[in-house]
């Protein structure tokens, strides 16, 4: 089929160099293999790896503070907790503006829940202040109405600050009276230029009214912060009135005159906040907001190892709040105990199975495989039934006279229950790898050792046991990996003392809703499992996993 050119190049039947043809065939083969794998790979990446990535992301994600209190976070940038004093008036003003929006959207309670994880008491602080924030700056608003009652009418504000095009569009919409949403408020260029604070504050108000409350800004009196902004704008720029039409000039000038005459008090948000809750007069809540304002935080991970972030750095949590390191430790210790009992119970059985004639061994193997194939819930229910104080085991012990009837053993809802049930559930995972390793150890080695004068024990310990160590290693890692991630069995038979870290993760997802902490705990557990998996892959090779 092949020919050779003068310079020694091999040619394929179609006259192309053989090497090139082979390369092309190889490329095609690679592509074909890849196309076969691609659908599954994409499926696993989307339905499994992406969720795991999402969990890792959530363990550091912390958008809520920056999203809910953007102005406060920006205003706090210049404040340092080291000063020992609370921040200045602009920060209080910013928080008032942020809170008005958050209260309308009801996001302040979520923020309170989030910050409560870091500083208990924050939730009630934000709830309480959220109720009071509407009234802050009320004296300014009232003084403004005293100057001219027209300021009490919602349309005054839309007409003063709205873009003429928006005003006519809004009027058309109101006339049509249909169900379409109101055209979104647009401030006029003159207002933005001459009354910048007012335009911004009113823009926020109108947006919240239209999107969150589904109300028209033409029908609601604006927040006091808008009135405060107007007085401040006019104080900074008394000639601003000139930029507006003839009917506005006397009204605005009257406000300027009243301000200069002292009829309108200066707004004091700091006093208002401190009145709402004394805590706002101290640096402490501000420290918390500033510490947790970045969009990414290590706070959840620190929490997961019983530490917390403070402005001074990382500090241990108080005694009462330390639970997670203890839980991790308990998970590890109980998993080790379960692995140990699995070795103790699995080794003799595996040895027997490996050394019996094939027919008997296959029959006995069913006794190992049936539990392996039986539903986890079935086995857990069986143990729950058997281990009860009125259950079969206690009945048997009482009948045999080993235990007094009024002194039945407590075998469930404690660590004993977890260890017994999980050993039973995981034992097949120890026996199967041990068995497959022991199958490969020739029995003649043991006989050879004995013929050379070794006692039974020496022959076993010096000759047989070392060869079975890979099986112990494989089985132990498998059992340990499975054990530290167990949730169902500890939940059902573990009681309060026998639960694992997984149960805490489930609790934070389902009950306490602290998803960030659940994600951080899960990430830590995942790291432990992946390290063990890597070790397992090194020792056994994942391709060598055998099932059944």
């Amino acid at each position, binding site marked *: 089929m092949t020919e050779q050119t003068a310079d020694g190049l091999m040619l394929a039947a179609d006259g192309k160099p053989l090497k090139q043809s082979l390369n092309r065939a190889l490329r095609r083969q*690679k592509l074909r*293999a*890849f*196309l*076969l*794998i691609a*659908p*599954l*790979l994409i*499926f*696993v990446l989307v*339905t*499994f*790896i*992406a969720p*795991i990535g*999402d*969990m890792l992301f959530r363990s550091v994600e912390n958008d809520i503070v920056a999203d809910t209190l953007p102005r406060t976070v920006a205003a706090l940038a210049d404040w340092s907790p080291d000063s020992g004093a609370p921040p200045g008036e602009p920060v209080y003003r910013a928080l008032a503006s942020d809170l008005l929006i958050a209260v309308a959207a009801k996001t302040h309670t979520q923020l309170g829940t989030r910050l409560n994880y870091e500083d208990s008491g924050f939730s009630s602080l934000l709830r309480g202040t959220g109720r009071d924030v509407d009234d802050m700056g009320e004296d300014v608003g009232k003084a403004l109405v005293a100057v001219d009652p027209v300021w009490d009418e919602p349309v005054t504000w839309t007409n003063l600050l709205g873009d003429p095009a928006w005003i006519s569009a809004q009027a058309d919409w109101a006339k049509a009276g249909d169900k379409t949403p109101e055209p979104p408020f647009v401030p006029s260029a003159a207002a933005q230029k001459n009354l910048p604070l007012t335009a911004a504050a009113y823009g926020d108000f109108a947006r919240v009214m239209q999107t969150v409350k589904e109300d028209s800004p033409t029908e609601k009196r604006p927040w006091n912060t808008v009135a405060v902004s107007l007085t401040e704008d006019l104080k900074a720029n008394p000639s601003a009135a000139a930029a507006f039409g003839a009917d506005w000039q006397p009204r605005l000038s009257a406000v300027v005159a009243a301000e200069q005459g002292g009829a309108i008090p200066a707004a004091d948000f700091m006093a208002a906040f401190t009145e709402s809750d004394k805590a706002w007069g101290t640096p402490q809540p501000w420290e918390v907001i500033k510490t947790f304002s970045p969009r990414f935080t290590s706070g959840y991970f620190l929490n997961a190892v019983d530490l917390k972030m403070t402005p001074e750095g990382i500090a241990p949590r108080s005694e009462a709040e330390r639970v997670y390191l203890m839980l991790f430790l308990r998970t590890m210790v109980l998993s080790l105990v379960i692995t140990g009992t699995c070795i103790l*119970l699995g080794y*003799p*059985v595996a040895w*027997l199975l490996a*050394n*019996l004639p094939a027919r008997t061994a296959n029959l*006995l193997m069913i006794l190992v495989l049936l*539990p392996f*194939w*039986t*539903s*986890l*819930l*079935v*086995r*857990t*229910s*069986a143990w*729950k039934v*058997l281990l*009860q104080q*009125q259950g*079969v085991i206690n009945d048997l012990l009482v009948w045999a006279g080993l235990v007094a009837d009024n002194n039945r053993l407590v075998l469930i809802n404690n660590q004993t229950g977890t260890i017994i049930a999980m050993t*039973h559930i995981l*034992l097949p995972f120890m026996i199967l790898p041990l068995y497959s390793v022991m199958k490969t150890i020739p029995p003649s080695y043991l006989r050879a050792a004995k013929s050379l004068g070794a006692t039974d024990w020496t022959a076993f310990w010096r000759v047989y046991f070392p060869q079975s160590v890979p099986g112990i290693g494989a089985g132990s890692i498998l059992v340990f*990996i499975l054990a*530290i*991630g167990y*949730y169902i069995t500890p*939940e*059902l038979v573990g009681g309060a003392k026998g639960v694992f870290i*997984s149960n805490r*993760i*489930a609790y934070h*997802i389902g009950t306490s809703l602290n998803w960030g902490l659940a994600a951080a705990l*899960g990430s830590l557990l*995942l790291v432990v499992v992946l390290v063990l*998996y890597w070790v397992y892959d090194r020792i056994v090779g994942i*391709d060598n*996993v*055998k*099932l059944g």
Partner: protein
Amino acid sequence: MSLPVYASTGQRIWHYAFRVICGLIFFFLIAPIVIIIPLSFNAQDFFTFSPEMLRLDPAGYSLKHYQDFFTNPDWQLPLWNSLAIAPVATLIAVSLGTLAAIGLSQSHVPFKSAIMAILISPMIVPLIISAAGMYFFYSRVGLQGTYWGVVLAHAVLGIPFVIITVTATLVGFDRSLTRAAASLGAGPVRTFFMVQMPLIMPGVVAGALFAFITSFDEVVVVLFLGAPGDKTLPWQMFTGLREQISPTILAAATVLVAISIALLITLEVLRRRSERLRGMSPT
């Protein structure tokens, strides 16, 4: 294994003691599963043997827990939900998994070990972590609390088993057979369905059984992802065990044990068939 005639008394004692120990361990393995079967026929609402049962008095036995299991909607709905979820999840896992296993078994696959690690990972990652991640991610995309969310999650959990069993069958697959088919004029699709598929069928079916039982027994993920209307049998058992434990649970458990035995027998038959097809003598 048998005791030599020259064994000393100590060796004799140890030989029998060892058998007794192994017997006890086998008893530990099997007894909890076996004991719930007679308990499920208890005429009383107790979780232990009543005196009538111990006397083998027929009055002590009844089928009332089974009657409850097969008529009570609290149990029937979850049973049908499980039967609606598991086959679909199995179908997805088996079709995608078999194709990928064939792709992986070819030589010259780039990044083979990395791909393998990703495909096996659902089996390695603890279920609670998978459930947490899926809960977060599926809520973002609107799959949380839906039938398809549970099906997709169960499918991906079953995939490692399909990959492992099918890859294992493909190791013994003689590649010259596909070449022979191709040389006789069969296209790749025809070769696959007429030559390769029948030979790797035992592995595919075994993988399907694993995927099915994974979905059928799975409780952690469905607890987080499922809507109350998608309650599955293990979920119902879990709530039953946690809140108020009713003896019907023993009837449900016995039904599940029967299913496990059926699956185990099917697998054993398949293993023998696979060995015969590959020209190995059955052991």
